């Protein structure tokens, strides 16, 4: 059943000051600006797109998920079934998008309509990623009480997959990402990293006990996971080993996106955004203009990136959606 946001559908959200692509004097430094007016938006948890003109942002209030879509010109709220706040979004194409959220909620978008999916769990789902329409993984767990949750979608239904025995009392897996169906990683609370080889999930050494909150990469030997609740923590995978390091004074990190193996765009607490060289762990901080938490980042591979977040304490939640332009 569509929720109350449906009445807003006809109202397009004005995009806020993205520098025009044909600006005669392009800035030399990346510029951040509001992507759209988020005054009425809840906490915005994640962003993903199939193309520069097909971008999805998910989030919401505690008891109400929200999805916003960018068509290349305007942002607009989408009709979605009634659902708790959505936490992550990932797609395999413009007509095959998955979103997951609190209390085991999951939605699928077929290019026209969002529909609710039964996941068989009441635990919060923190991440979703797939290699194909019939090979999608979701992870989650109740932080603090657990247990961690690992789900697989075979194109027909979600089913629970046993989480391997862990060497620590981690209560949640927070994100999942891979390069192929046989090279998938899940990261989570207390620095847990699980690897999947197409047959089995197994814990792999991470070198850290800091929460790892998100990961992305450009290939099987260039993957970066980020996290840390106070100071930033970065774990880098070189194809065989994960190496972790605190990157203080950079703050705790929530989101990472990579287009090139030598540069990760990272976001985190107190409006932090930076580019990071995964090899040297040197970073360049960028001024985002917000002190709100940034929770996720994604680039459209056309020179723009989006970072989303907000404030998820007190009610109502408050959202922020930023666009980063480099040309």
């Amino acid at each position: 059943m569509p929720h109350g946001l449906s009445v807003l559908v006809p109202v397009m959200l004005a995009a806020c000051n993205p520098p025009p692509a044909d600006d005669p004097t392009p800035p030399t430094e990346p510029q951040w600006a509001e992507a759209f007016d988020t005054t009425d938006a809840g906490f915005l948890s994640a962003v993903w797109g199939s193309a520069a003109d097909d971008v999805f942002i998910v989030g919401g209030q505690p008891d109400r998920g929200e999805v916003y879509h960018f068509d290349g010109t305007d942002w607009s709220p989408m009709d979605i079934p009634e659902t708790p706040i959505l936490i992550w979004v990932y797609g395999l194409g413009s007509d095959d998008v998955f979103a997951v959220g609190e209390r085991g909620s999951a939605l699928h978008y077929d290019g026209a309509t969002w529909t609710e999916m039964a996941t068989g769990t009441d635990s919060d789902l923190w991440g979703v990623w797939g290699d194909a329409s019939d090979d999608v993984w979701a992870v989650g767990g109740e932080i603090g009480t657990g247990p961690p949750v690992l789900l697989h979608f075979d194109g027909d239904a979600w089913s629970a997959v046993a989480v391997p025995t862990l060497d620590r009392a981690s209560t949640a897996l927070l994100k999942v990402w891979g390069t192929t169906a046989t090279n998938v990683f899940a990261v989570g609370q207390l620095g847990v990293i699980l690897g999947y080889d197409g047959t089995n999930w197994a814990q792999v050494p991470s070198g850290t006990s800091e929460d790892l909150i998100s990961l992305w990469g450009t290939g099987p030997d260039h993957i970066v996971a980020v996290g840390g609740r106070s100071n930033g923590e970065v774990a880098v995978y070189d194809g065989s080993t994960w190496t972790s390091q605190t990157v203080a004074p950079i703050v705790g990190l929530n989101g990472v996106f990579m287009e090139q193996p030598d540069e990760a765009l990272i976001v985190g607490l107190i409006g932090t955004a930076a580019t990071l060289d995964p090899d040297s762990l040197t970073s360049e901080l960028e001024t985002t203009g917000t002190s709100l938490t940034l929770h996720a980042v994604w680039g459209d591979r056309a020179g723009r990136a989006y970072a989303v977040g907000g404030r998820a304490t007190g009610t109502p939640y408050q959202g922020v959606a930023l666009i980063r332009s480099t040309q």
Partner: protein
Amino acid sequence: MSIRCLLSLSLMSLMPLSCAVEPPDDPTDGVADVFAERLGDPVPFATAEQLETFERGKAVFLKEFSLADGLGPQFNLTSCGGCHERPVPGGGSGRYRNFFLIAEKQDDGTFLPLGASLVLRTFAYGHGEIAHPALPAQTNVMPQRNAIPMFGVGLLAELSDEEIQSRADPDDADADGISGRPNFDQGFVGRFGRKSQTVSIEGFIRGPLFNHLGVTTDPLSDAMKALLPVPSLAVPPTLDTQRVQAAAPAESNSDEDAATDPEMTEQELFDLVSFSMLLAPVPPDEPTGQTERGSATFESIGCAGCHVPTLVGPRGALPVYSDLLLHDMGAALADGIEQGVATGAEFRTQPLWGLASVGPYLHDGRADTIEEAILAHGGEAEAARNRFDQLSASEQADVAAFLRSLGGAAQFSPGLLEPGADVLPVAEFGGPRRVLSDEETARFIRGRDLYDKDFGINAGLGPRFNGDSCRACHFAPTLGGAGPRDVNVMRHGTIGDDGSFTAPDIGTILPKESIPSVTRAEPQSGVNHFEHRQTPHTFGFGLMDEISEATILSHEDPDDEDGDGISGRAHILSDGRVGRLGWKAQVPSTAEFVRDAMGAEMGVTVEAQTGLTFGITTDDDAIADPELSAMEAEDLTFFITTLAPPPRQPITDAALVAGGEALFDGIGCAACHIPALDSSAGPVPLYSDLLLHEILPDGAPGIEDGSATMREFRTAPLWGLSQTAPYFHSGEADTIDDAIRLHDGEAATVRDAYDALSDEDRAALLAFLATL
């Protein structure tokens, strides 16, 4: 523009200070006017409104959290003041409040915190919790922590990141052997905690509230943050406002007990944070020839390389004697705990202001004295330590005198009593039970001061112990009183499949503490039962000593020959004496009680004395036995036996109380809680027969003690009841009503009769009990 500036400051920490409050033109021109006359008082610049907040916050600081308030389910402490009490609320604590951090260092180098954000919790109540939370099996890092005093923390919070970073020399570029570096917390330079791991006072309060008390909180709202004495918003309204406290955790916390989360209101949290921010340091003493010599030596031998005399904040120069940076302190001090960027060997340079009154010293309280603390320095401080070691005795004394002059010496106490404290009035809580002669008064004071004194490691404390003084457990409402749940004694043992009880090799008491050089006692294999023992008060013990054994025996009815369902029996000890003190009447006299407690609770050995059999006369610490002389034990005994019995409380509604007293007798409470026992000093109104009764349900597990069975307990004396919560042998009752409802076994009939009373009658009965 302000946000841009903010982010530049907070995240690019090595950039020059361009936006923060400018320090005074000449920061070395005098010390900032930030001192109070006495530790525990607020800063002099507090506004009238802040002073009101300070008092409210102090009340929250001292509040004893009950189970209904949200204490637990696992906890170490029942109040903030429990750990921060020396010499006054806001200070440090004796070793009896030491706690353990636990972690696993894995083979690949991963440092895995265990416990509640590293903190091992000692006690638990209810909700399926084992009374003594188990140590995780994988624990291989387990250092102790001694509480840090909080005086002046608001001033440290105001320091700019750059002021701290200006002294960093991570690669020892100046080749002086000292290579301090900052720790970080959400991008800000850390300054609080043994490893400078925290920058936010709100965070440093919410963390311990949850980790040590199990009290849940929500973060302060931005509106409340904006009202704190130290600016604490992430986004300052103007560039003139510092933002150094912005890194408070944004997450709420929750737990599994019955109290609704959050278990502290936002106003209470605000007041508590404000109280902490407003606690003032005290100024250094006026220099003397000795302290000036000591100061010069302190400088010349290199102590000031890390313990830099002043840091400059927005109010001027602060004589902190710390750079607030991390330094490698060497293998002997290394605790293996990694926090932020701090390694297991790195510690923050401990501020020295107020040093004189806040021992013991070092992160785990291993040093009794300042001199010992200096000599324990290693790593980057080894050269300075060695130079101190090579000083003459008088030069070392000069340095120690200088350090003791850095504030607080006037409030130094060997325990918690103020220096020269008066004897409390006759017949009041903590006062003598009769007028004393001058000689008796002197002896009473000697015993009292011994009761209050913290026993140091050099005085024989440990090696394992529960308290480091008598007062550590017996202090509520005053010296000699009861103790809150956080000083409970843990009894333990093994209950076999056949229901039999086996005491562990170390006895049924499981000490919660150990001196830092010794590992904590863990339950031996097979132990499967743990029970709390609440600390009862010692008021009136002298009168109880004067009750004859025959009087106690006269109330026995072991076979319930009178058919009233109550079958009390005396606890006859193995040597034939009648026990009367302790939850199981396992101790026959105050003199034996003193000897027993010194050994079992403090690890202090006593001198062999004819006719006295309790206590330990030898132990395996490095201190020569006996560690307490016979004369000292006798002074202690004199003090306790001279303490007045609990005074009756004022009666505001005589009819109500009289009605309650009649019900007390009418429903059968008085069958065991006999109002008075005769003695050589006249009737002793203790409301107990001092006999053992089965008060646990059939089949309930328990701890055997002497001839007392698992379900048997001595009838608890009720005098002083209203002032000595919590209740019951386990301390699991918040209220007298709760305690009555926990009675079972022989008392089940009376409990049911109580339950069947009307609300009005129950209120009358409770009103009567509150007057005892």
